[in-house]
């Protein structure tokens, strides 16, 4: 187990290195010039060149990347070109909001997804089952941007139940969590349904029923724990999905997380911020996957990590 963990962590470092090379190269190859963005339209050619030199952007790719990497190894993510502050400060200020949103989204996924999956499995073939499976299909396919705006329009503007975007109280958290979690909820409800149907067909469930146990007891004490296990393992992978989702959702809801930071930085080619957020997201994805793998043996004793 320990050897496995060490190997995986080493792999993680390699993956992050790869991500940093590829992202840095893509940004380097971009036809747009970050110095023009910093210097603005009234700058003289001297100002432009001077800024380029000071930021080291006149150096060849290898030198630029080496400088970035050596900073990175010392925990220095660099300074934002346009915000003129440390990238680590900017990310640290915004990371808690993004994590909170992810917790909310996981909650929404589990609550909505599992409930729908269980009901659909128990009432298999009924109108409720079919409606919920169509709903889950819509949830999986609908663009998050649209879902977000629709939620805002109905629940905040028309009904006035929740604030229109922003950050602060639990009420602010509901709609963005739903918008981010609805995709996962769609998947989970389908997975939960099939997993539950499988379990309900098992001999031990039939035995339990033959013993004369109450329906609720069979469902929640015997069937559910077994049916839900494969889904728990999925949550780690979801963290990766969320990383792409938060860019859109945070912009729609004015949620002050790193997704919004990334979106603003991309529009203005603020390379240090784009690099920083990409690396943090890559870390989250890798760690999420690692967690998913680590959890599996506990769920299914037949699997051994080597």
């Amino acid at each position, binding site marked *: 187990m320990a050897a496995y963990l060490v190997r995986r962590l080493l792999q993680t470092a390699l993956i992050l290195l790869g991500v940093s090379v590829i992202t840095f190269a893509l940004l380097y190859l971009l036809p747009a010039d970050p110095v023009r963005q910093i210097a603005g339209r009234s700058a003289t050619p001297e100002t432009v060149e001077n800024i380029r030199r000071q930021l080291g952007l006149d150096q060849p790719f290898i030198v630029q990347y080496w400088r970035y990497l050596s900073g990175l190894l010392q925990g220095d993510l660099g300074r934002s070109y346009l915000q003129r502050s440390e990238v680590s400060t900017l990310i640290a200020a915004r990371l808690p909001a993004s994590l909170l949103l992810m917790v909310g989204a996981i909650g929404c996924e589990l609550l909505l997804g599992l409930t729908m999956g269980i009901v659909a499995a128990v009432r298999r073939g009924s109108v409720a089952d079919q409606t919920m499976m169509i709903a889950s299909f819509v949830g999986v396919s609908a663009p998050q941007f649209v879902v977000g705006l629709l939620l805002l329009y109905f629940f905040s503007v028309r009904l006035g139940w929740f604030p229109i975007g*922003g950050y602060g109280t639990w009420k602010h958290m509901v709609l963005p969590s739903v918008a981010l979690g609805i995709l996962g909820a769609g998947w989970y409800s389908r997975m939960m349904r099939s997993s539950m149907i499988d379990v309900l067909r098992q001999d031990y469930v039939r035995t339990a029923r033959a013993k004369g146990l109450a329906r609720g007891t069979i469902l929640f004490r015997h069937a559910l724990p077994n049916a839900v296990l494969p889904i728990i393992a999925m949550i780690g992978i979801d963290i990766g999905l969320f990383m792409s989702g938060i860019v859109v959702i945070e912009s729609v809801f004015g949620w002050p997380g790193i997704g919004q930071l990334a979106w603003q930085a991309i529009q203005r080619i603020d390379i240090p911020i784009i690099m920083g957020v990409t690396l943090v997201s890559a870390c989250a994805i890798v760690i999420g996957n690692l967690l998913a793998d680590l959890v599996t043996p506990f769920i299914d004793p037949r699997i051994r990590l080597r």
Partner: protein
Amino acid sequence: MKNWLRTTVSASALAVLMAGAPALAQEEMLDPAAKQGGSIVITYKDDVATLDPAIGYDWQNWSMIKSIFDGLMDYKPGTTELRPGLAESYEISEEGQTFTFKLRSGVKFHNGREMTADDVKYSLDRVTNPKTQSPGAGFFGSIKGFDEITAGSTETLSGVTVVDPMTVKIELSRPDATFLHVMALNFASVVPQEAVAEAGADFGKKPVGTGAFKLGEWTIGQRLVFARNEDYWRKGLPYLDQITFEVGQEPIVALLRLQKGEVDVPGDGIPPAKFQEVMADPEQKARVVEGGQLHTGYITMNVEMAPFDKKEVRQAVNMAINKDRVVQIINNRAIPANQPLPPSMPGYDNAYEGYAYDPEKAKAMLAEAGLADGFETELFVMNTDPNPRIAQAIQQDLSAVGIKASIQSLAQANVIAAGGEKDQAPMIWSGGMAWIADFPDPSNFYGPILGCAGAVEGGWNWSWYCNEDLDKMATEADSVTDPAKADERSKMWSEIYGKIMEDAPWVPVFNEQRFTMKSPRMGGADALYVDPVSIPVNYDYVFVTDVQ
């Protein structure tokens, strides 16, 4: 309008004669209906990058910086008329190359220290020092010693001298008629040296100025809170106790919140998709203020790329574009243009008729130029609404005269990059990147976007038009520093732009109007909400009507 420079200077000369005191209230332009107190909420989509006046050059931080800092010069609220700011008065030498500013006494920075001439000198040295990386450094190019400081051989401008604690003298290396405007730019704001030294690279997050408001709280990515500066040197101002800027708010969400009374001014304006809906609703329309702005939207034609190297072809394109229809596409949020300068700019030529929309004549001219069968070209455009739609209208107009233009819809930075290459973009629609003047002077529409200086790799002169005769005329016009000759100078500029239109490197398409929305409780003259300098709102002068 054309008389602006003369009136300002004579008005301030008058103020000097009257020793200032009796005309004080009038000079502050206080509103008798205004009430002191209350707080408002303004929203923006993008985060505020910095409040350092040497660096900030964004849509959202420009007016914020104006309220935290002051420069020697300033504008009368809601107008493009200059007035003295931290300078109580100024004198211009005979030949127009030496400016002596007498400072106001008793002006205090937010840290409590009194502002002196040393601070003025320090601030100008700082903004021009290459280490500061100020995007505005180039504006100060006419100050003596600018080249040396840019080259890094010195850290101080030889042209700026402290005569006594309340007097500063600025010598120029060449006559510069725009210099007083330059001194009213945010980049010329006066900052206290000790606060800059203490905050270091983070001065932009911990700004200290002399302005009407001081920074209270700043939660990165969420909100900024400005608090009233009780010691502000313009007595009786500002009216508001507090302004909260909430960032990260999509314009469409901001509009919904405005309708619910949670927001007072949506800083990014009315989203294009909602414009008609707002204007169709009498209740909402009543809260919209419309005004002009110093903006022109244009199509550039790259004179280095065939067939736009032929003047006749460029003129023909000017006749082929149906500008009225383009204006309709953006719901009449603009007025059709026929010259580079916007109508509210001195030097705008009212008599000039431009190229009338005439596709038949355009076709004939193309035939004359040997292009009877038309030609194929590319039109670059920024990829956010409504620009691709406008590009399609232009494309249709062009195809009507036989020009087949394919649309290259790209991110803003990529269009700017393509325009800065000599052989990349034959045509560019400027929407979303168009020139908005930094200060209300006709010269500001020339140098970087139509002069030879901008026709360089990475420059903003996307038509690559470079006419050395016009460059000479421009230098000549900017040497006319005598305020009494302001009219003459404006005429010289009209002539320059007239000649440009003859060569037709641009199709001027429209001048955008500004539409600001405000909550019902906001008070103050409409002009404050379409202030040409403090965009979107002049924070120092607006007030709320629901305070006791």
